[in-house]
C-alpha cells in the first residue's frame, strides 16, 4: 500500500523461540527479536529454522518461507503457522530452545481507513494472521469476520477479539462462507473499508463484492516467494498495471489495482 514501509535490518538474523502454542490446526510460534523494529500490520518475514532446514519430504525445504506477522509485542514476534508442506511442517516442530532465522519486516502494511469509513476485517483460514495485529492497532474494536474449514481450524479464531465465525461444515458459527457474513454486514452498513486476507478464492469473492458495492478494500495476497526482498522477481502477481513483485509492492494491495485476486500457483 502507499504507507512508508518499516525497513528490515539488512541481513538474516537468528531469533530464539520463546513459545509454541497449539491452536487446533494451527501453531503459534513466538520468538524474541530484540534487534528488529516493530513491524507494521500486514508486513511479513521470511522464516527458516536454524537447524535442519532441508532433508524433509523430497529433500526440501530449501528456500525460506513467508509469514505474516500475527502480533508484535514486548520485542517478541508471533507467527501463525499451518502445516501444509515441508517448510511449515519443520517450523511447526520448533520449540523453545530452538532458533528461527528471519529476514524482515518486509513488504507493505495495511493503511488506515479512508475518511468516514470504519474498518471491517475479513479473514479466511491462516489468513487471519495479519488481521490480528491490525485489529490491535485499530484499537481492538474493529469487527472481524472469520471463515474456517472446520472446528479444528476455527480454533484460531481466539486470536482476534470478538470475531464472528463461519465454517464450511457448520461445526462452529455460521454454516457457510465468510463472504455471506460480509454481505450481511455490508447490507446493514457499507461505509466501511475492508481488510482481507485468506485463500485466493475467498479474496476474489471479497474483491468482487467490494467492487460491486464500491467499498474500498485492502487485500493481503500470497504468492510463491524465494527471497522476499525483490531480488528474484519470482513472486509477481498480475495487476491492472502489469505484473508486480508482491514482496515489494505488496503483500497488501489496494483491491482497485487488481482484476482478480486469484494468483497462479498460490494457495493449496
Amino acid at each position: 500500500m502507499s504507507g512508508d514501509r518499516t525497513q528490515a535490518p539488512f541481513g538474516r538474523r537468528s531469533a530464539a523461540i520463546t513459545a509454541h502454542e497449539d491452536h487446533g490446526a494451527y501453531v503459534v510460534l513466538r520468538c524474541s527479536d530484540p534487534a528488529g523494529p516493530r513491524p507494521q500490520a500486514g508486513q511479513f518475514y521470511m522464516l527458516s529454522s536454524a537447524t535442519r532446514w532441508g532433508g524433509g519430504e523430497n529433500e526440501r525445504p530449501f528456500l525460506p518461507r513467508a509469514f505474516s506477522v500475527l502480533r508484535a509485542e514486548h520485542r517478541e514476534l508471533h507467527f501463525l503457522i499451518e502445516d501444509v508442506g515441508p517448510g511449515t511442517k519443520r517450523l511447526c516442530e520448533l520449540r523453545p530452545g530452538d532458533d528461527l532465522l528471519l529476514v524482515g519486516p518486509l513488504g507493505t502494511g495495511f493503511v488506515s481507513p479512508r475518511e468516514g469509513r470504519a474498518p471491517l476485517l475479513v479473514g479466511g483460514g491462516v489468513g487471519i494472521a495479519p488481521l490480528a495485529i491490525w485489529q490491535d492497532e485499530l484499537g481492538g474494536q474493529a469487527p472481524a469476520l472469520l471463515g474456517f474449514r472446520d472446528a479444528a481450524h476455527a480454533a484460531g479464531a481466539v486470536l482476534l477479539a470478538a470475531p464472528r465465525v463461519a465454517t464450511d461444515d457448520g461445526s462452529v458459527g455460521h454454516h457457510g462462507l465468510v463472504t455471506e457474513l460480509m454481505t450481511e454486514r455490508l447490507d446493514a452498513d457499507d461505509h466501511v473499508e475492508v481488510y482481507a486476507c485468506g485463500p485466493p478464492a475467498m479474496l476474489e469473492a471479497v474483491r468482487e463484492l467490494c467492487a460491486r458495492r464500491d467499498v474500498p478494500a485492502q487485500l493481503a495476497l500470497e504468492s510463491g516467494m524465494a527471497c522476499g526482498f525483490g531480488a528474484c522477481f519470482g513472486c509477481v502477481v498480475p495487476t491492472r498495471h502489469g505484473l508486480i513483485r508482491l514482496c515489494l509492492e505488496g503483500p497488501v494491495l489496494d483491491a482497485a489495482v487488481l482484476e482478480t485476486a486469484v494468483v497462479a500457483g498460490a494457495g493449496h
Partner: protein
Amino acid sequence: MTTLDFCGIALEHPIINGSGTFDAIAAHRAFGDELLERFPFAAFVSKTVTLEPRQGNPPPRLWEVPAGMINSIGLPNKGLEGYLAEDLPRLAQLPAPLIVNVMGFTREQVAELVTAFSAREEVAALELNVSCPNVETGLVMGADPDEVAALLERVRPLTDKPLIVKLTPNASDVAAVASAAQQAGASALSLINTLRGMALDPRSGSPWLGGTTGGVSGPAVRAIALAQVQAVSQATNIPLIGMGGVQSGRDALDLIRAGADLVAVGTESFRDPVAGSRIAAELAALLQTTEPVKTW
C-alpha cells in the same frame, strides 16, 4: 585494504552477485541505507537488460527442487531506455563498480546495447548473456562456438570496456565455446548460468511454471559448475567468474581452485541477503590457511 584487479577494475574482494539474483534498488527499499553501508558484493551485476521492455513470464515462476530451485522469470526488465533513465543513475550510487548484463535476440540488438552502455562511464564492464536463441539462426548463441565468435566479432570493436561472456551450461562442449569467445576477443568469461529444468503441478500434471521450463540453480548444480569452470579454465587464459550453488567460503574456494578469479553468489542471496559478505569473509579466512593454487 588490499584490492584485486579484474580486467582493470579494482575490487575489494572476489565475491560478486550473479545477474538477476539481487536487485540493489529493491533491496534499498527493503533494507534502507544499511544495504549501502554493508554492501555485500565487490561489484554489482545488474539483471539482464534487453533492448525493449519485457514483462517476463506469467506466474508461477518458482519451484523448489531438492537442494535448489527452478525459476522461469523470463528476463523482465524496463528495456534499454527505461534502464538508462531510471536504474542506471541509482545503480551508479552503489559503493561498488557496476557490471551491466545485456542480452539481444539478434547480433544487432546486442551491438546496440553494447554501444549504448559503452558510452556510459558509470558502467565498469558489460556481461553478455548468451543463453538465448539467436532468432536469425535458431541457434543458442552461447551453445555454439561459431555463434559466439560471430557475436563477439560484431560487438568487440564497439567498446573498450571489458566484455564478459556469460556461458550457458546447456551446451555439449562449454570449453569449445569458451575458447571461441576468448579468440574472438572476450575479456573474461562467467559461468554457469542455470540448467534447463522443469516441474509439473502435482495436482494437474501440467507444467507448473508459467514459462513451461525454467532454469535450475542452487547447491544441486554446484558439482556441475565446478566441472565446467575447470574445463573452461583449462581451455582459456582470460579471467573467469565462477558461479553455481555457492553457499560458503569453501564452495567459493573450490571454484577458485578450479580456475575462477571471481566467484558470484546467486540463489544463496535469496536465503540470506548478506550471503555475499559472509562468503567473502569465510573465503578470506580459508585463503589465509590454504593455498588456492590448482594442484593438478
